[in-house]
């Protein structure tokens, strides 16, 4: 009984903190329509900032609290809304999710940059009022921080409810999501209200973080803290992102069950601690499974800003062949380390292909691509290797089996999404990813099931050899490079074929308008299931290739944050294009590494400027996230800009001469070993991407001078005045005889003309 009460109190406090974080999610979602994936990162940043003030600089607690909760956190929320989220109206759900993930990764990179995790002693966070007890009831101790946490949660629950139901601004806030334009017509100011709610949501996240950190008691870690608050997603989903009482209940259930697991699971169950950690994610998954079906909706915006043109099959073949030739040329001039990095980049590009297939073609979202890779790697490790030692090879059957198993796991994960829309699948996959990280990849003990002894993730690392397919051995680095490049090309061309097939068109229909698809008699279940399985299988194959390139992989290789970054960069590259996947792999692996090497070399060569180059090296870690955040401005992705640029190069002689000339110079410099191979790649990419982009802008600007922008017919007379041609066209359409009025005539001059 004593244990039960003590753990119940602990659970209630934890649940209270979860509720505070979850209520922040509900508030921002109901007012801005954006599910804030960065909630955990905001909490994390607040914890670090508070630590800096309170213990780093020794400020008194009230001052530090006032600074973090009263000023910095709301400010961060408001700025995020004004600078980033406001631009997201009229973009697809994918872009909204990606941008908030970009913010999350950015804040995390920022925290690791400022508070270097390796440089100092572990940062400890103490409880409010320390270990002092608020009260003793019998033999039961109730510490202060528990009372604070639970008390604040209840106060906030009532506070928000009062705000939403009883105050004018609260009611207006709820109206923002339903119809911002209507609210504006009625005198409301949706932008300002949404900004205030983001400030509030950020405040709640910060508060939750500061309350949760002392409860877990371990040293502060940016990744762990971010994920900890993500546990609150489950509570928010339990409240269906609307109901605060249900959210409160969900939070308490999570808080209590997780503490009871600690209290009552026998210590000989070696998996109980991992289970305790993954419980919120299991809870989230179950909640998603039983959520009632939401109404079929049409396209929520009439015309999305995202635009994807599909290449013809012929173009796909040409691009595929070109890529193989380019890879061959690169191999010739590159050092061995360069070839290694290039191969790794290609394996990531294969994984990114699974995202293009799922998100670009079908509009569904997978935030845990690498976790599917992890599943496949485990299958190959246990069932797909023949030979031992240096002679060990991954078999074709092993790879195929891994693909089948990941497809089946994918089907299981997609279950909640069959009835629900994009955001929920995104959350289900994220729950899966965190679950795999916390529960599966920590499985190092030997288990026995029906007499069969096995260890899932042996010794925390798995060694995957290179494959041997039929008579062809891909053990050498060069052979494996071509295998990966070939695999990418084959899958990529296959995807273009798919997109041009009836199946591909049905996918597009489902993505563009679920409501129209249903009223044409489409049952989305099989379609969604099949595409998710296919995508999971590709992610699995890519994961196996990645592991085979690395050799020995540990759990970090499948980290959820890496999956998120890959997804984000693929969207940046262009989620609708096969080339967007290539962009993602090259950018995330090769480009970042090349940039790092270059900066480090500079730092050594010009040691007086070392500090500046070290600053840039840190800045590079924030770079991908920064690019992700700008997605709101260019939701179609970078590849479409590059393609546009290339088309301009084709059309403009001077531009083409410039590009080819520059490339020849770069080649010559590399051949004479003035510059090294990675600098060659960086410079080539810059030449192929930046020159057309900049040159194109200049050309466009010149061409556009004098040429008026085309105006849709219904906006003539509003965006620009009527011209004689317009009037003639209208007269023709109305079967009127043309009345010619001199174009210089204004209404005021007309009577004068008439009388003249």
């Amino acid at each position, binding site marked *: 009984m004593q244990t039960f009460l003590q753990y119940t109190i602990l659970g209630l406090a934890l649940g209270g903190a979860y509720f505070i974080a979850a209520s922040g999610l509900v508030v921002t979602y109901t007012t801005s329509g954006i599910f804030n994936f960065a909630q955990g990162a905001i909490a994390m940043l607040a914890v670090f900032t508070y630590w800096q003030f309170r213990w780093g600089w020794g400020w008194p607690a009230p001052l530090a609290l006032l600074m973090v909760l009263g000023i910095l956190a709301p400010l961060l929320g408001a700025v995020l809304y004004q600078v980033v989220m406001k631009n997201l109206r009229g973009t697809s759900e994918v872009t909204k999710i990606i941008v908030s993930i970009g913010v999350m990764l950015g804040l995390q990179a920022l925290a690791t940059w400022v508070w270097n995790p390796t440089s100092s002693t572990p940062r400890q966070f103490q409880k409010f009022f320390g270990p002092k007890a608020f009260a003793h009831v019998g033999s039961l101790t109730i510490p202060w921080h528990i009372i604070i946490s639970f008390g604040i949660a209840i106060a906030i629950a009532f506070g928000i409810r009062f705000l939403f139901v009883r105050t004018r601004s609260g009611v207006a806030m709820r109206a923002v999501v339903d119809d911002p334009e209507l609210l504006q017509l009625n005198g409301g100011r949706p932008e300002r209200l949404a900004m205030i709610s983001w400030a509030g949501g950020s405040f709640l996240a910060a508060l939750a973080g500061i309350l949760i950190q002392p409860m877990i008691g371990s040293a502060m870690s940016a990744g762990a803290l971010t994920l900890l608050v993500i546990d609150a997603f489950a509570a928010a989903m339990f409240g269906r992102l609307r109901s605060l009482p249900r959210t409160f209940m969900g939070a308490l259930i999570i808080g209590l069950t997780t503490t009871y697991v600690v209290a009552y699971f026998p210590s000989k169950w070696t998996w109980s601690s991992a289970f305790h950690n993954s419980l919120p994610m299991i809870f989230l998954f179950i909640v998603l499974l039983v959520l009632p079906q939401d109404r079929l909706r049409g396209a929520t915006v009439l015309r999305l800003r995202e635009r994807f043109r599909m290449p013809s099959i012929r173009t796909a073949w040409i691009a595929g062949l070109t890529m193989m030739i380019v890879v061959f040329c690169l191999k010739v001039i590159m050092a061995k380390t360069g070839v290694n990095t290039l191969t790794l980049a290609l394996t990531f590009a294969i994984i990114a292909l699974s995202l293009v297939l799922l998100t670009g073609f079908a509009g569904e979202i997978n935030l845990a691509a690498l976790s599917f890779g992890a599943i496949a790697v485990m299958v190959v490790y246990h069932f797909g290797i023949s030979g031992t030692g240096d002679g060990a090879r991954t078999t074709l059957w092993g790879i195929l089996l891994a693909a089948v198993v990941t497809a089946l796991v994918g089907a299981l994960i997609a279950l909640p999404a069959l009835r629900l829309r994009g955001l929920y699948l995104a959350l289900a996959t994220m729950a899966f990813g965190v679950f795999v990280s916390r529960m599966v990849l920590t499985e190092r003990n030997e288990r026995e099931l029906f007499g069969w002894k096995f260890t899932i993730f042996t010794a925390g690392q798995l060694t995957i050899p290179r494959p041997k397919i039929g008579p062809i051995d891909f053990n050498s680095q060069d052979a494996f490079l071509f295998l990966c490049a070939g695999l990418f090309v084959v899958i990529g061309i296959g995807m273009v074929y798919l997109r041009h097939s009836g199946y591909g068109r049905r996918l597009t*229909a489902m993505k563009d308008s679920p409501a129209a698809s249903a009223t044409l008699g489409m049952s989305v279940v099989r379609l969604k299931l099949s595409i998710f399985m296919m995508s999971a299988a590709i992610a699995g194959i890519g994961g196996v290739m990645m592991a085979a390139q690395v050799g020995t992989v540990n759990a970090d290789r499948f980290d959820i944050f890496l999956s998120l970054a890959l997804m984000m960069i693929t969207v940046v590259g262009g989620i609708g294009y096969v080339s967007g996947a290539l962009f993602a792999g090259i950018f995330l692996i090769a480009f970042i590494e090349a940039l790092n090497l270059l900066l480090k070399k500079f730092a050594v060569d010009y040691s007086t400027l070392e500090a500046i180059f070290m600053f840039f090296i840190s800045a590079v870690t924030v770079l991908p996230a920064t690019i992700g955040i700008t997605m709101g401005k260019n939701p179609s992705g970078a590849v479409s800009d590059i393609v546009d640029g290339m088309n301009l190069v084709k059309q403009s002689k001077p531009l083409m001469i410039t590009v080819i000339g520059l490339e020849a110079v770069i080649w010559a410099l590399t051949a004479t070993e003035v510059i090294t191979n990675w600098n060659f790649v960086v410079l080539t990419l810059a030449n192929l991407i930046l020159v057309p982009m900049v040159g194109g802008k200049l050309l466009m600007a010149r061409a556009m001078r004098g040429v008026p922008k085309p105006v849709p017919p219904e906006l003539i007379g509003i965006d620009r005045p009527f011209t004689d041609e317009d009037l003639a066209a209208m007269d023709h359409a109305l079967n009127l005889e043309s009345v010619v009025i001199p174009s210089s005539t204004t209404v005021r001059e007309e009577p004068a003309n008439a009388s003249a």
Partner: protein
Amino acid sequence: MPLLETIGVKVRFGGNIALDDVSISVEAGSVTGLIGPNGAGKTTLFNTITGLQPLSGGQIIFNDKDVTKEPPHKRTRMGLARTFQRLELFTTLSVRDNVRVAGEIRNRWSLRTPKMDINAETDRIISLVGLGDVADREVGEIPTGKARVVELARALMIQPTLVLLDEPASGQTEEETEQFGQLLRDLAGEGLGICLVEHDMALVMQVCQTIHVLDFGRMIASGSAESIRNNPTVIDAYLGAPESVG
């Protein structure tokens, strides 16, 4: 026996009653009009018939079967198609592919669905509704009037027995509307049941055999075009003085 019947359909949004005890019927081989001021509940009624909007009460009978509980795609497979007032086109596909994919969806309804020749049927429908000149354009580039015709073409691709058209003529030129009216009469002549929501009264009076009038979620009148035109309640609520009807 009417092709479609709604019996006492009721829809509530929170405290708002969007539809209150609405009973209409649509016959095969005829055009039935559904008119009323904005916000009268016409589109909501279409949504309940197609299953996109759950009912708070009442029944939907289609083809002699109670389909009230059936999901949208099952109703469609029984021969019910519709167009949307706020266009729901597949915006990343061309006009031809918008029409073609409807056939591809239809061919996949079930294993027993008799397969149609999609290429031939697509060409036939496109020339039937007169979209030949824009067939290979992106659907986002064509004018709204044409886009509404694409919606109709897509609905016809699934070979329905009943189509619900939600303001198909808005955005069309007078000439286009003229042709459109003729097309509707031809389709009805071939046995198709058509239910038409439209504000263009000239078109409605010209093509509809029966007209139902909604106002504030209630049915205020129902009958032949002639009787509706002269019904004082309808004139009061919607049409205005008879002269302005034209």
